[in-house]
């Protein structure tokens, strides 16, 4: 189907056979939980329980437990929301846009990235619910038929656009992710030894039989869903940025926000993918699938999007000066030099300066550097949203209302809740579902025109090829 160039470096190293792929990935699902996984999962669940208790208290008492005030109506809540939504973007980008661009290296990471997307969107959604004064009425934001007369949602409100954008995004991502899982679930079903797992994975794999027709449908659907998802990559964060861009608040009311937010989202999403994949590849011993080449490719994306974000920051400043609007000029001067200068400079350092280090080949191929800088980027991106939301609100038009925001224990704990939720879900995924798309990775084992070893086509359930070496049996 694809013509591959002889000079390309292999995408999967270690001379893996098809059987190896199946074995390496399924091993995690079939085996007992590893010690590392158990420890990590226990910590996540404890964090989740603590966070849930705090979220419950937030809902029970009211939003007074947060540090918000009459001037600053959003702070950590919406910062966290935008941050999580942004993180989610990498998954869709990898699975959809990179699919369309035929970037085959994506196959090793797309499963986990998509899972990350879904869990990140769930975390983001939890902040949508959490930030409402009366969350039990959240369904009023949906255009549901009702018996209250002509009550309807306000289609002018960016928050309603958000509801549509996020729910569409979540649905499409979930379908895309699940569809990609089906062949692999069938593989696990076929390998399953216990009746229970055979039953569960059998049900989950929806009767996949591996026929050519099924595979053809699978390919078509992938393309269709990739086509559907591609605009979503751009639209979701564009719409999220409208929450700010369509307002009148200086520092929010900016036309540059849509591209700037999308770039920022991909930036932070890739950083998060890096963090997760670097851990998975070590813990699950998948170094041959998630190679340094992957890391380097993603670092390049991070550098590109980080630079776009940096340019956007500077453009904002330029426009603030060029527009000659005193409120906007002040908003930006205040960002850099006002009481929240530290947040601004944290953002600038983390987002603009740190990814530039990836121009060095050594750094961008270094696992430690990559991991560290990815964490730094995500800290920076959190601060970006904090800077946009809080420093714009805290000093807007009337100086009489200027105020400061001081986070409380509950601001922090409710953010921690989302980490508990995210990692609990992600660890469950990593244990019970194949973290690498076996079916697609198998398609790229032969990425060069060199011939395959005989034993490559070994049956999954058959004996493992001991110590396979790439091309060793070439005739």
């Amino acid at each position: 189907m694809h013509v591959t160039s002889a000079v390309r470096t292999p995408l999967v190293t270690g001379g893996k056979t098809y059987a190896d792929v199946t074995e390496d990935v399924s091993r995690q699902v079939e085996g007992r939980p590893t010690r590392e996984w158990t420890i990590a999962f226990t910590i996540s669940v404890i964090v989740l329980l603590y966070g849930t208790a705090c979220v419950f208290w937030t809902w029970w008492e009211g939003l007074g437990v947060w540090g918000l005030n009459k001037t600053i109506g959003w702070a950590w809540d919406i910062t966290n929301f935008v941050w999580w939504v942004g993180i989610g973007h990498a998954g869709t980008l990898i699975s959809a846009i990179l699919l369309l661009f035929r970037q085959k290296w994506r196959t090793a990471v797309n499963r986990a990235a998509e899972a990350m997307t879904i869990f990140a969107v769930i975390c983001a959604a939890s902040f949508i619910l959490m930030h409402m004064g009366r969350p039990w009425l959240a369904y009023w934001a949906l255009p549901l038929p009702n018996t209250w007369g002509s009550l309807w949602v306000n289609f002018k409100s960016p928050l309603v656009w958000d509801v549509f954008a996020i729910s569409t995004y979540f649905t499409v991502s979930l379908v895309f992710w699940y569809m990609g899982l089906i062949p692999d679930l069938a593989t696990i079903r076929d390998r399953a030894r216990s009746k229970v797992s055979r039953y569960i994975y059998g049900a989950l794999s929806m009767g996949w039989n591996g026929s050519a027709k099924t595979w053809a449908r699978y390919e078509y659907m992938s393309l269709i869903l990739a086509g559907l998802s591609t605009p979503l990559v751009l639209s979701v964060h564009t719409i999220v940025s409208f929450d700010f861009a369509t307002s009148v608040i200086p520092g929010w009311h900016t036309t540059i926000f849509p591209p700037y937010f999308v770039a920022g989202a991909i930036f932070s999403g890739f950083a998060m993918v890096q963090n997760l994949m670097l851990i998975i590849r070590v813990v699950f011993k998948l170094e041959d699938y998630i190679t340094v080449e992957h890391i380097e490719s993603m670092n390049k994306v991070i550098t590109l999007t980080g630079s776009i974000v940096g340019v956007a920051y500077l453009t904002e400043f330029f426009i603030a000066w060029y527009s000659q609007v005193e409120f906007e000029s002040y908003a930006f001067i205040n960002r850099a030099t006002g009481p929240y200068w530290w947040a601004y400079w944290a953002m600038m350092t983390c987002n603009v300066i740190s990814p530039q280090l990836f121009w060095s080949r050594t750094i961008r191929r270094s696992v430690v550097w990559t991991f560290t800088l990815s964490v730094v980027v995500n800290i920076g991106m959190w601060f970006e949203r904090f800077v946009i939301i809080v420093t714009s609100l805290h000093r807007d038009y009337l100086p009489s209302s200027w105020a400061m925001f001081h986070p409380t224990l509950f601001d922090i704990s409710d953010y921690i809740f989302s980490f508990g939720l995210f990692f609990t879900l992600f660890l469950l995924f990593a244990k019970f579902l194949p973290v690498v798309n076996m079916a697609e990775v198998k398609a790229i084992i032969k990425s060069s025109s060199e011939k395959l070893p005989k034993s490559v086509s070994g049956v999954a359930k058959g004996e493992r090829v001991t110590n396979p070496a790439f091309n060793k049996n070439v005739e």
Partner: protein
Amino acid sequence: MENTNKRYWKGVEELRNDPAFVKNANSEFANPDANSASDPDGLFGGNTQRRDFLKAMGFSVAAVSLAACEAPVRKATTYLNKPERTFPTISDYYASTYVDRGDYASILVETREGRPIKVEGNPSSSVTFGGTTARAQASVLSLYDIDKLNGPRRGDAAIDWPTVDREIVNQLNSVASRGGAIRIVSSTVLSPTTKAVIADFVARYPTARHIMYDANSAFGIIQANQLSFGRPVIPSYDFSRAQTIVSINADFLGTWIAPLEHAKPYALTRKVGAIGNGKKEMSRHYQFETGMSMTGANADYRTAIKPSQEGLVVAALYNRVAAKLGGTSISAPAVNVANLDKAANDLVQARGRALVVAGSNDPNIQVVVNALNSLLGSYGTTIDLNTPVNYRQGNDQQFNAFVDDVKGGRVGAVMFFAANPVYDHPRGAELAQALPRVALSLSFADRADETASLCKYITPAPHFLECWGDAEPRQGFYSLMQPAITHIFKTRQFESSLLTWAGRPNDYQTYLKNYWRTNYYPQASGFDSFDAFWIKALNDGVFEPNKGRAAAAGGATFAGNLAQAATGIAQRYKPTEGMELALYESVNLGTGSMANNPWLQEVPDPVSKACWDNYAAVSQKTANDLGVQQNDLVTVTVNDKSVELPVLIQPGQADNTVSIAIGYGREKAGKSANNVGKNAYPLAGIVNGHVVFAAFNAKVEKAGGTHEIAQTQTHDTVMGRRAVVQEAKLADYQKNPMAGRYLPKVETSEGPTDPTNITLWHGYGKPNHSWGMVIDLNSCIGCNACVVGCISENNIQVVGREEVINRREMHWIRIDRYYSSDAEAEDVKGLETASANPEVTFQPMLCQHCSNAPCETVCPVLATTHSTEGLNQMTYNRCIGTRYCANNCPYKVRRFNWWKYFDNDNFDYHFNNDLGKMVLNPDVTVRSRGVIEKCSFCVQRIQEGKLTAKKERRRPLPDEIQSACAQACPTNAIIFGDMNNPESTISQILEKETTGRAFHVLEEINVRPQISYLTKIRNKDQVPQQETRQESQV
């Protein structure tokens, strides 16, 4: 037809048809041994049938789930016999009188189903002109104060009235028979009838004497007038006739004598343009003072002086004026402060239309001020000595003698009425020690306050809204007080108690009527009978036989001993190097008698914007010298008394001085007042028998530690934003009515254009009404009456100190206060710092009801929408609490219910008990937690007004419908009305001022508010160096 079905028996019993079997044949599960169950009747007893069990189960489940869904209806009781002329949901208004010690307002009380819910100004009064103060507005909440006593007490034990009467009469008799002194100690008594009752009491007990004192004493003025004119009175001041006003430490708009009586006439001299009937002249106001008072904030020229300079400033001013007008000069040390020459020149120029007032309680100063006014020809024009006012009748010397008498054991019985000297007199501690030794001590206080708790008896008098009474605030201006509700607790009026103990009939209503029949009815004309007069007076609330009587010109000739006063001044006022203390009365809390009123505690100080605390106000320079910052605790010591207070940096405060508000630090007032701030009365001095609110020998030391001061506004300056505050100087305004207006332009391809010409919106039609507001920045004095009026009308919750620190106060209208800055317009850091002695602007800020409202477009659920009458409406029920609207509001007027504020003991401010909740306005929803709220332009009043008009088949009259803030405003700075009605005041003002002073705040963002502001005009000279400063700060 033969039945071919075979019959089969289930058993032999069926064949035999036993009665026992037949009985149970239909029970599926027979219960063979029902009677042996231990609980034969209970549900879980042995005889419970399956179906019964299921029924009970089903009922319980249904009941539990229903109870969970449905809010129980509580205590909704219909009238069995509906009182005549009381209609549910329709308000009744009664004219009455608000009196709290010397504080007075003629009021209308709005009652709903027999409970007072709102106080409004009485427009019939020519003393208070229909205005109200924050305290008058808040007084209705004090009626429902649950901390009050519910009946008389002996010590801590509740007893009944007959017992009290018996015991007290016995003890009074025994004291009287011993010839022991009986003292009735009160604050100023404004009521002539009460004084008559006291006289009757004194007639029965000849050893009794009535002693009046005031916590905010003006005895110095009374004495000075005795010395100067032989008349121990306080004259009435007519600010409306003053062209040049000089005030030396007199906060005459906020606290001095009768702020309400001064505010409107003062504002009349400040209104220019259409709101001032086309007039383009305004008074010029000089203020010499220590701390920045509300009055000082309104002054055109303000000079900060130390308390030790006060007498010297008065003397210097006198000498300068005397030099020009040929008066005898006096000898006093020279004083070098700004604006003295200027003030003297202006006074001389405005001769006959000048007014000098001084807040000092030192008769020497007041004598010189009298001489000065006399020289300027103020008597008969701006000062009316022939119609004196009665707001302060306290006699410091008598009270001092009383304290000495008590200490010396020379008092046999003492009764405190409307007086709490243990708290609010500098010698309170001495009195507290001596009081237990008095044989009979009793207090008429409504609670066991600092004084009452030391008394042997407390015979609580009711709140003024439960009372009959009268008042004579100014000679020949009477007003009546009538109860708007029956007594809530087992209280008895002071007068009834005295009459009882004097052995007279204790029906005070009849007594009052008779008193008016005897004394005032003869002064009235045009009434057939006394009853007609009485009903008219009750209806109007006021009877003013002296109204319209011109001040007698030249009616007063200064005959005081000026030289003696000058010597007194020279002796007392000497330049000092050290720290000096100035005590002042807070505009909100006054003397502290109403401190347990959470509305007043939460309303911020007009100038410092601090609430729920008093503090040590110092200038930035002094703070630097002391090495302290805002919120640092300092110990202020005078002689051997000291208080520990947090520091507040107050621009405009004289260097090396510290100002502290009295009225705080109550210990036994109730839960909202106790331990809020510190009591500063002990720091006051007594000089020659006069209470003096200043000390020249204060020590201020850093105490270590901090105490955060709750402020509703923490940023002081307007940051040079001319889109927010627009102001001009009078001379410029006279040349160009649009002076000071900021007219931003937006560049387009067709050249610059008004921002309002560029819009995405089609606008809303306002075919019927268009409700709007005009706010005159020039006549807003910052007094907070509107804020409390709004709180009272709209059930606004009190959130408490902590939540104000968290910046979550719920006020729908606030008064933004901006200081000017010395920095250049480009210096955004410098602009954050206020000048050392700044100019001040007050800007009432409330929902602007934007026609292109940013809040409306962003609400996801359409909880905030626009009406066809220009109102930006808030539907609480629909709100899901995203707060997007609040974020997107450029004016930051939307308020979020962070908590549930009612029925929540964390917010113990009267809305968590049934009594406190009686103050709620039933027309306005109490908001639940999680929803946004904001100013509605009093939509309930608009609706009521329109319905009234509709019932009467007419259009609403121009200005018929008033918002609570506009109605409360004592200076008519807020004008509310229908902009579609050309007859309305607002339309008429806007017609002229659209091309004049009227501007929208933040015009350039084109949200098209329904509220217009009129530029602030300052009557200042064009001085070059001041000009540059002016430019940089507007």
